[in-house]
């Protein structure tokens, strides 16, 4: 893995400045909301990419970690008045522990078998929360309205602080992904993705490195979950634990380009606005046109550019040289 070039760093800083200025130019709530979703799903796709794109574990159960993050911080806040920032860390740790507990018995599952197990895991968690009285079961939980402040992780008058917090979260997840991808771990994950045999023969403890990948991914996904709970201030299993969220995370990553650092963010930047805008403009007619456009886009890209949009960019870059 190469180190970052000057061109990459400067264009990264350029994009960052544009993103910082964005809400100052587009002051209406809707564009800001769409961008927040782009960042949030971008972050979850980056987290998925660490285990799916690099380590080859195609998880369709990411929503469980998202839900665990959302539920943990909210439960701690409602029941014990624990600060959501602390709840965020606890939620991440619990998600990572659950990930390890479920990942260990799945150590030898590869490819579609792992995918199937992950779907089952997500559904088990959803069913469980649907019936768990302590956390509100199917009725869900409403977060208390606290005074708006950064400390309380709650803002009522504007989406702007949420926008910047989520942007910061996304950047954190990208930094984590960059560190993973360029370190020994990244090489080992890619070896494991290729085959468990080739990994073992190079002295790689496959079980251990897979668990690390799952735990990092779970922690980051749970962070996004806590954010979501603080942003919406209401959660129930049908909004934070349903399979379509997991699928969307996978689609975003695949569309943008699994196995590259920026790919999943690109995927989110394309898919989330398409899904939100078509939903708002066409969804209320009940014709499902929004889903058709969405589906057609995914089909086109997977047929013509299996390496994702990022693959398209890097091909052009190579040709330019």
């Amino acid at each position, binding site marked *: 893995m190469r180190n970052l070039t000057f061109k990459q760093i400067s264009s990264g800083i350029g994009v960052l400045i544009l993103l910082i200025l964005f809400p100052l130019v587009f002051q209406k709530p809707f564009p800001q909301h769409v961008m927040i979703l782009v960042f949030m799903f971008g972050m979850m796709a980056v987290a998925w990419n660490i285990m799916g794109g690099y380590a080859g574990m195609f998880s369709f159960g990411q929503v469980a970690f998202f839900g665990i993050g959302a539920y943990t911080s909210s439960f701690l806040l409602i029941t014990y008045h624990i600060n959501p920032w602390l709840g965020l860390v606890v939620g991440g740790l619990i998600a990572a522990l659950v990930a390890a507990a479920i990942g260990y018995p799945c150590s030898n599952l590869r490819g579609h078998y792992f995918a199937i197990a992950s779907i089952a895991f997500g559904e088990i968690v959803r069913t469980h929360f649907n019936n768990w009285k302590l956390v509100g079961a199917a009725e869900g939980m409403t977060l208390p309205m606290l005074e708006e402040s950064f400390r309380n992780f709650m803002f009522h008058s504007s989406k702007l602080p949420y926008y910047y917090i989520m942007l910061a979260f996304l950047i954190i997840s990208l930094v984590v992904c960059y560190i993973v991808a360029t370190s020994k771990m990244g090489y080992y994950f890619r070896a494991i993705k*290729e085959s468990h*045999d080739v990994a073992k*023969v190079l002295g790689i403890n496959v079980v251990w490195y897979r668990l690390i990948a799952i735990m990092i991914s779970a922690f980051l996904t749970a962070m996004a979950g806590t954010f979501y709970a603080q942003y919406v201030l209401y959660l129930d299993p049908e909004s934070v634990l349903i399979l379509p969220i997991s699928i969307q995370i996978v689609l975003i990553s695949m569309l943008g380009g699994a196995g590259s650092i920026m790919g999943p963010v690109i995927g989110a930047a394309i898919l989330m606005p398409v899904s939100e805008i078509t939903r708002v403009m066409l969804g209320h007619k009940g014709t499902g046109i929004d889903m058709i456009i969405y589906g057609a886009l995914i089909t086109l890209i997977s047929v013509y550019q299996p390496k994702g949009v990022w693959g398209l960019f890097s091909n052009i870059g190579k040709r330019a040289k």
Partner: protein
Amino acid sequence: MKKTPFLEVNGVTKRFGGLFANDNIDFTVEEREIVSIIGPNGAGKSTLFNCVTGFYHPNSGKISFLGEDITGYRADKICKMGVARTFQIVQIISDMTVLENAVTGALLRFNKIQPAVEKAEEVLTFTGLIEKKGLLVTQITIADKKKLEVSMALATQPRLLMLDESMAGLTRVELRGMIDLIKKVRDKGITLVVVEHVMEAVMEISDRVIVLNSGRKIMEGSPQEVVVNREVIQAYLGEKYNVVSS
């Protein structure tokens, strides 16, 4: 007192259901030897390899490396102890470059990337692949892939290297290259155990040859002894074949 052997395989049996893929096999390997394991298809050569390298766990018997009982150890742990291997069907990482593949192997002994890259380049220079280090592995020939697999194994800095049919399917020129490489590896002080069908190579490189048939060891000796042995010829060519003594 008897010196502890470098590698000792003692009464190893591996069953798959009712089939004895390895039946009570004994042999030892001394340091800096090249030992070849030959035998017809289905003789149990690859199974034996898998037992020694931890990919299978034998049903009974004992395997010791440098005096330590490694029976039942995980494959990655055996690799860390200094036993590297290649596969009959080449196993390399297909979305990496030649160099990145070798670096992945070298990272076993390093935590930082930079020293691993240096080690990987050193190994690729040794195996003659350094000029192709920037190529994706999908762009190189099968002979180079086999060499790369050996390079990855060498990058883990083994004391024992086990090659599973690394010469099958090579052209004569490529075969020459691989034989020379194996000799060079031995000259570096690395012990080799090879499974091989190409007899020309076996005759040239081996210090000792072990012959397996139907899961049993039927013979062990120098290459010259093995090729004239009646039982060995029968194993390969059938019982009706008569050896015309010269």
